[in-house]
């Protein structure tokens, strides 16, 4: 929108450079200026980190410096597992580097079938469909399940892939206040009874690391006749007796209709999936555009995923280490006086809440200079306009690494005035 027509005429002897009228790129001027102002303050660009070497699930070299990785979602530390790597190497040699095609045409190889079987076994369900990324799994499933005249009801703090899945489809979109059972109930009760409804929830919300009261929410959804999809991207491998996610931990396996997940976090490669016990679930493959109109995952990727998933089913020690690590770091950061995303360690994500961008960037930079990488997150990705330094734990983090992390947080927090 422009207000040019309302401006008084005047002659400007030193006009600023104006982008040509039809330059589609000029809409990014605000973003470019904001980023430049950040870089001019002398900090490393938080959104342009390069890992020059990766030495383990918890260590990389960034700008020539050994760095502890504390912001990678590599929860279960599977990326360097010898069996996982061997499976990938074998598939790479036997099936080549890529599939050149859609799952629907020439893009289904042995290991695409094997990884879907691994998922069915892991989740104890009859149906599993693999997508090229977790983002595309949400995009495809949500847009395909809910059609014109039907409703998608989503949490306001939902991941971008859920919002984009809503936009990709033709359903009516209604959102409710984050994790509010009451608000979900109120909204569902105002909708017409007849049309189909899909309530979309997440087990763990990745910005603050808080978990959803799924038991109450699923009960409300069922009361109103809605089907339920839960995104368990940030819980796979370490919630519930079989590591299936928060929904398993809360005893909802017979009530959740669809679970969406990813290979890029606990599984340690790339890809997304949806699992379900619905007898007609396979039909999604015939109708889902983000499944059909894209190339399938390379054989080495699905082979590593299949091996990793089968190992995750029995990774009890790793699961225990991960929780110990999350509890330890949460406790230390709390002791230091930081404001955290959750009162107790609810998941493997610990978010340190800061008041503004300057403080967040200064602290993020001090941590990086000290050899610790965390995620910085800012609005609009964050809830309620907060600036966050997000730590995600790995089962492979050692106690000496986390001690160092806590010491650096202590020094950096004092330096920027986030803690006393």
């Amino acid at each position, binding site marked *: 929108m422009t207000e040019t027509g309302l401006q008084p005429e005047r002659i400007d002897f030193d006009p600023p450079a104006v982008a040509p009228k039809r330059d589609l790129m000029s809409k990014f001027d605000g973003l470019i200026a904001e980023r430049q102002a950040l870089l001019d303050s002398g900090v490393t660009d938080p959104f342009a980190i390069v890992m020059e070497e990766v030495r383990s699930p918890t260590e990389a070299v960034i700008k020539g410096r050994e760095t502890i990785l504390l912001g990678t979602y590599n929860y279960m530390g599977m990326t360097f597992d010898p069996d996982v790597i061997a499976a990938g190497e074998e598939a790479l040699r036997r099936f080549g580097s890529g599939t050149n095609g859609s799952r629907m045409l020439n893009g289904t190889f042995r290991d695409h079938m094997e990884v879907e079987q691994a998922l069915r076994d892991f989740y104890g369900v009859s149906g599993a469909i693999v997508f090229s990324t977790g983002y595309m799994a949400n995009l495809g499933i949500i847009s395909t399940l809910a059609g014109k005249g039907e*409703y998608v009801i989503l949490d306001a703090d939902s991941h971008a892939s859920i919002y984009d899945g809503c936009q990709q489809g033709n359903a009516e*979109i*209604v959102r409710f*206040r984050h994790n509010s059972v009451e608000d979900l109930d109120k*909204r569902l009760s*105002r*909708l017409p009874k007849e049309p189909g409804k899909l309530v979309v929830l997440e087990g763990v919300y990745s910005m603050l690391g808080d978990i959803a009261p799924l038991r109450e929410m699923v009960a409300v959804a069922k009361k109103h006749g809605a089907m339920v999809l839960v995104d368990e991207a940030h819980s796979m491998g370490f919630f519930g007796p079989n590591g299936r996610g928060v929904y398993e931990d809360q005893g909802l396996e017979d009530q959740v209709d669809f679970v969406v997940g990813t290979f890029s976090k606990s599984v340690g490669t790339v890809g997304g999936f949806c699992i379900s016990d619905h007898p007609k679930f396979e039909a999604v493959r015939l109708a889902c555009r983000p499944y059909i109109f894209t190339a399938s995952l390379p054989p080495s990727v699905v082979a590593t995923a299949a091996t990793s998933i089968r190992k995750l089913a029995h990774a009890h020690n790793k699961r225990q280490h991960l929780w110990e690590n999350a509890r330890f770091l949460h406790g230390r950061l709390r002791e230091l006086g930081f404001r955290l995303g959750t009162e107790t360690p609810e998941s493997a994500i610990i978010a340190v809440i800061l008041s503004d961008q300057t403080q967040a960037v200064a602290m993020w930079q001090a941590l990086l200079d000290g050899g610790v990488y965390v995620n910085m997150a800012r609005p609009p990705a964050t809830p309620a306009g907060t600036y966050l330094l997000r730590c995600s734990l790995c089962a492979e983090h050692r106690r000496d690494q986390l001690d160092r992390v806590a010491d650096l947080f202590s020094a950096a927090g004092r330096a920027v005035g986030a803690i006393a």
Partner: protein
Amino acid sequence: MSDRQQIFDTVTAQIEPFNKKGVALAEATTFQGDLEWDSLTVMDFVAAIEDEFDIIITMNMQAEIETVGQLVDAVAKLKAAA
């Protein structure tokens, strides 16, 4: 007072707590341009309107609403359908 005027008055009363700049409210007042609301404010405000009138304004509908007048029309339509 007509129904529409009543809705207009209720809507503008609901806007006031969010009207940080003290903008004078008229039919053509825009939420983004004049009131300069961000997406979080919009969400809180929409929830307040929904509770007030016991309706649902879907995100699809919200995308089409730019001015106070358009919101009043949308509320009138939703109330009539309810």
